């Protein structure tokens, strides 16, 4: 705000600064106000949008075929011709890293969506059908006591490496966390007077869920989904890195790093570029999640 607003120039009425103040309040509401109030949210969203742009328009961003093998140009250092250098098969790393954004984003978003949906259903059933609750929760406890990465690795051992299998494996590992969150929200909401009132008034359970429970679970669920997205991206990269994820025919940041593993002491850039993109994307999603938490769930934001 301008300092002049506070002084009262000779001859002006006391009330005069008021019109100046009003637009200032108004400007905090719009798009730019949102950015000013939630800088982490804006920063995260901006980087994520850039990554989505890169993933969608990868073929048009001066890339070549990311799988084209050329033995004549193996292990070239980054240069004007090969921006990120080439790998041990002579494939262009710039193209591979840009195309790799597709895998990370698809896996991250799909897992966030699927795990939230499945976890929501499990959590609602658990919170409302009391007979099923203890059984469901024991199963969730069991799944949760297997470290998530190990669980995903074990599931991947059953099938061949492909994007859809990675998505399913990581989703299964993430469901219990969502289910627990939803269940705890449901259990606390059930104690609320207005839900009691609805039950007393004879409202049917599906309607109570739809109008009273679901809207209240939405905010924590969205926040949780963003964290799941970030952790799914990391898990995918880890799976691909140890050779249990996306096969090398589809470039992903994890498997590019896996191929750079043999040479990392001499050709560090093969590992560096996919690592930087992966970290930046996960950082963006995490910042987005923190921002969403501050915006949608102020009570939770205060406690963390």
């Amino acid at each position, binding site marked *: 705000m301008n300092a002049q607003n506070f002084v009262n120039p000779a001859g002006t009425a006391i009330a005069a600064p008021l019109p100046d103040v009003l637009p200032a309040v108004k400007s905090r509401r719009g798009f730019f106000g949102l950015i000013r109030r939630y800088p982490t949210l804006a920063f995260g969203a901006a980087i994520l949008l850039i990554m989505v742009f890169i993933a969608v328009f990868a073929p048009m961003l001066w890339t070549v075929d990311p799988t084209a093998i050329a033995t004549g140009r193996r292990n070239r250092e980054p240069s004007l011709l090969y921006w990120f250098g080439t790998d041990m098969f002579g494939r262009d790393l710039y193209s591979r890293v840009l195309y790799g954004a597709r895998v990370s984003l698809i896996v991250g978003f799909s897992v966030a969506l699927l795990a939230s949906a499945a976890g929501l259903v499990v959590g609602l059933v658990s919170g409302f059908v009391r007979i099923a609750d203890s059984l469901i929760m024991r199963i969730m406890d*069991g799944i949760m006591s297997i*470290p998530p990465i*190990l669980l995903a690795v074990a599931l991947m*051992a059953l099938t061949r490496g492909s994007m859809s299998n990675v998505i399913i494996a990581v989703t299964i590992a993430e469901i219990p966390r969502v289910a627990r969150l939803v269940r705890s929200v449901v259990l606390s909401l059930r104690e609320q007077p207005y839900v009691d009132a609805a039950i007393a008034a004879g409202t049917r359970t599906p309607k109570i869920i739809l109008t009273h429970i679901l809207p209240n679970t939405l905010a924590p669920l969205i926040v949780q989904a963003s964290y799941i997205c970030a952790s799914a991206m990391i898990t995918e990269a880890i799976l691909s890195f140890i050779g249990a994820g996306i096969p090398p025919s589809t470039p992903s940041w994890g498997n590019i790093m896996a191929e750079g593993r043999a040479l*990392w002491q001499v050709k560090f850039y093969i590992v560096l570029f996919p690592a930087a993109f992966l*970290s930046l994307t996960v950082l963006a999603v995490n910042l987005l999640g923190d921002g969403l938490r501050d915006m949608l769930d102020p009570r939770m934001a205060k406690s963390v």
Partner: protein
Amino acid sequence: MLLYVLKRLLSTIPVMAVVALFVFSLLYLAPGDPAATIAGDQATPAEIEKIRQNLGLDRAFVVRFVEWASQILHGDLGTSLFANMPVRTMISERLEPTLSLLIVTLFLAILIAVPMGVIAAWKAGTLIDRAIMAFSVFGFSVPVFVTAYLLAYVFALRLDWLPVQGYTPISQGIIPWFANLVLPAVALGCVYIALIARTTRATMLEVLQQDYVRTARAKGLALPGILFIHALKNAAVPIVTVIGLGIALLIGGAVVTESVFAIPGLGRLTVDAILRRDYPVIQGVVLLFSFVFVLVNLAVDLTYTLVDPRIRY
């Protein structure tokens, strides 16, 4: 108290049963026919069938599960499909490096993270607090193998301060053992440090607003004493809880860290087993790690009374 311990011990049984059922289904659903694998390429269908009957593979799921579970309870984890060795022997041979890595990481992380969280809470809103919180966001975002490669590149390759890769058994001296573990432990510990520091800060912020903290300040007690004795003691329960839960992160991360630093531990064993589809080994490792994780969290529950005498069972 004893009753509570018993109750908690009993409550881990269904959890471990779910884990066991899951791990068994893994072998049951695994593609490929173990009988055909054992019989070899030259075997006739009749021979394969005979081996199948000998192994009991033709029996019902439940029967096989019960038999398998009783084997596990007797400490028999089966035999590797490739190494022709009991899984138990393979695991115990690889146990030391992984255990060393996990323990060193645990200690380093707690020693770094708790003071970080306490200072961030004390200096809440200042530059130090923001720097620590920013570090924690980065800790959550940078995957363990990225940190691992960066650390190895800078401190081992460029500066040549520490060995690049490998593992030295503790029997060959503490110093070489530790020197080999520093980089992997720091890399592995980053997420863990971020997690613990965040929780420490959040709980300390609450505790520092309590009246007894103000009283302690007013009567002139030294600040470090207030922060690390009075306040930290009262903030301990959530911190200890998150330390226990975070073990899952460490176990998952160890698989990757061992690959990067060429540490011949359980993580490497897992990765090799995945690539060769050696299901009994995968089973054994998953079972063992889950068991450890459940036990650690049981232990954490029981320490609540130690860190906070107000909690009684």
